[in-house]
């Protein structure tokens, strides 16, 4: 199906060619750029609506209930009702809030989210901007969200918001470290930061087979990075109401919600790109493969949300600094050795050596853990 495979790419060529007939080339390029941006934003909005519906439906099923089923077939139009509700809510700014910061934060939290979409390869040739520093760009841009959320927490002049804001800063900065370290393993294998090259590097074997441990570390820290359960402390409902967005209502609140869902989707999409081979896959069109993989990972996110309780802030930080960061460093070192030693020896030795190395790391972790537990018990008995 070559027609379906390159549907969107051909479409964009065709439109560009059509415009170039009666416009100067720069104008056609400009219009194409704007069109791409518009497409991405519309795509983001549709995705959030779909994800919102899907998540409520899936979690409903986890909990032995139907989920939304009143508006439209299977409740698929629920988001329309929700959106209307959000738009018509009163827009409240608390009397003591820092007005500028308070109103700036919801915008600042959404913008980086849309910026990240620019470098995601949705299919073969379907990338808005193939930056050669793609992954670095993602890390840099997503850090901006932290500032925006801190602004929201600070500007609200609410103690719950402040606590939530502080938690966000601590959590997101801590979990960026293992996230980047685990992704470095992939970048080491491809030798490029560009997401397009990373996907193309997985044409023979997806990197999850070479770095299962790296994938796991990336996945865990990515969940924490987007504040999803079980790491949803910044907006822990049972503790600090809604955390940093306690004081927001109406559209501003919707902005936070939008950013949150899109971020969760983006994290799933990046995981699919880095470790699952992105749009690579047999028979189906590439973009279908990409979405299948991204949604499969997103399903796991929903699954975790429907199952697990929340960690406490000290346990969360402990997990990052005492466990994930050392593990990611060891993983990086070992994977580097493996990649160097098996260089030029073909695919099979690489896969085999990687799996053996991963197994060894896991075994070492288990042994160290058991040893530490025994030591602790001995100390307790002695005390």
């Amino acid at each position, binding site marked *: 199906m070559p027609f379906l495979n390159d549907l969107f790419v051909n479409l964009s060529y065709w439109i560009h060619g059509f415009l170039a007939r009666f416009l100067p080339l720069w104008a056609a390029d400009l219009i194409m750029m704007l069109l791409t941006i518009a497409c991405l934003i519309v795509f983001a909005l549709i995705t959030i609506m779909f994800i919102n519906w899907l998540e409520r439906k899936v*979690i409903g099923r986890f909990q032995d209930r139907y989920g939304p089923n009143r508006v439209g077939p299977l409740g698929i139009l629920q988001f329309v009702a929700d959106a209307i509700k959000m738009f018509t809510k009163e827009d409240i700014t608390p009397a003591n809030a820092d007005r500028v910061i308070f109103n700036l934060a919801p915008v600042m939290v959404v913008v980086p989210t849309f910026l990240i979409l620019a470098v995601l390869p949705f299919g073969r040739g379907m990338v808005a901007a193939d930056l050669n520093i793609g992954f670095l760009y993602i890390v840099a841009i997503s850090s901006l969200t932290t500032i925006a959320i801190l602004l929201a927490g600070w500007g609200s002049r609410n103690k719950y918001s402040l606590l939530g804001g502080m938690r966000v800063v601590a959590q997101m900065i801590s979990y960026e470290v293992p996230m980047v370290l685990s992704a470095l393993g992939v970048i080491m294998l491809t030798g490029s930061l560009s997401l397009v090259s990373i996907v193309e590097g997985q044409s023979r074997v997806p990197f999850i087979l070479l770095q299962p441990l790296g994938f796991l570390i990336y996945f865990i820290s990515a969940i924490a990075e987007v504040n999803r359960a079980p790491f949803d402390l910044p907006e822990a409902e049972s503790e600090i109401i809604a955390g940093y967005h306690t004081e927001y209502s109406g559209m501003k609140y919707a902005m936070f919600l939008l950013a949150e869902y899109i971020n969760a989707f983006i994290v799933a999409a990046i995981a699919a790109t880095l470790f699952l081979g992105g749009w690579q896959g047999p028979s189906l069109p590439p973009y279908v493969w990409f979405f299948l993989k991204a949604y499969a990972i997103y399903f796991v996110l929903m699954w975790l949300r429907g199952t697990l*309780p929340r960690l406490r802030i000290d346990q969360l930080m402990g997990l990052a600094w005492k466990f994930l960061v050392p593990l990611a460093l060891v993983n990086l070192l070992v994977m580097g050795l493996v990649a160097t030693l098996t260089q030029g020896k073909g695919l099979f030795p690489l896969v085999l050596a990687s799996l053996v190395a991963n197994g060894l790391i896991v075994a070492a972790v288990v042994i160290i853990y058991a040893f530490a537990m025994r030591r602790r018990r001995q100390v307790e008995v002695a005390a």
Partner: protein
Amino acid sequence: MQTVETRLRTETITLNMGPQHPSTHGVFRMIITLDGETIVDLEPVMGYLHRCQEKIGERNTYLQNIPYTDRLDYICSMSNNLAYVMAVEKLAQIEVPERAEYIRIIMVELTRIVNHAVAIGALLNDLGCFFTPMLYALEERERILDLFEMASGSRMMCNYMRFGGVRYDLPPGFMPELKSVVAALPAFIDEFERLLTDNEIMRIRCQGVGILPPDVAVGYSCTGPLLRASGVDYDIRKVDSYSIYDRFDFDVPLGTNYDVYDRYLVRIEEMRQSVRILEQAIEQIPEGEVSVKLPRVFKPPEGDVYHRIESPKGELGFYLVSDGSTNPYRYKIRSPTFINLTVLPELCKGHKVADVVAILGSIDIVLGEVDR
């Protein structure tokens, strides 16, 4: 090593948790002094749901008080009914037919299962589960509420017990339904445990949190699962047996580490023991009358009486003073959670904000009963 003196001046912040807060289980307020995320001080503030229950009780006749007891601890109306009705029976020395005793035990033990399931569900909600355990618990509760509805006509405000028995005999079809519910309960509890007991996050959140040593628990006169999780073997069904509990064979689970996790385990085990009692009661229940005839205008003799039962949340007692008229002269409720709640500041100090809600959830309060 040289100690570095920090010049950074820090302050504690005061946080008002409640009366409107998702995890205070109603309108309960805690004034928390925080150092960062650590609790320095905590002061519980009660009374937002005060409805003058005790004064109303003096205005009502004895019979009129029964529906008011439904609204104390609205999760377990049956056991509230029982405590009050038994107090009046003790005062007026009314004999209860045997079948009625069995029906009462069945209802009260079903209530215990409902309460513990909901308590654990609510605890997990407080720990940050996205409603899944809560909804599993509520699903099982629905089946038991169906039984209550069959017997009493109401699902939550049952108003089922009367002096000298129960209002109606069990309807036809009740016993088969009861048997099928009881038969399904062990599987439900197992499923619950599979989901939660060995959950790593659940363990690190609950173990070692909110430790209540036995002497402190006794000192604050805590009762119920809270006390038993502190390792004190004190179950009124055993130590001061009432109704026909001496005929049943059941164990009293005790905690060993005195923490939130133990309270969870004690509740799970108590549900299993309740199932045991139910199975025996179903086997033994006789035919016969379910109530005795009382005069239309009910006037107990002068005197006072205190009767206590092991309600799902602890010792629920009614103290009644009668002056021989149709209304009680004094109507005092000893509600378990109000007294259990006084130990909260003791449990919370030094823990994190997130632990406060877990500890509060593990005490298992219902504000209808705390504030009365």
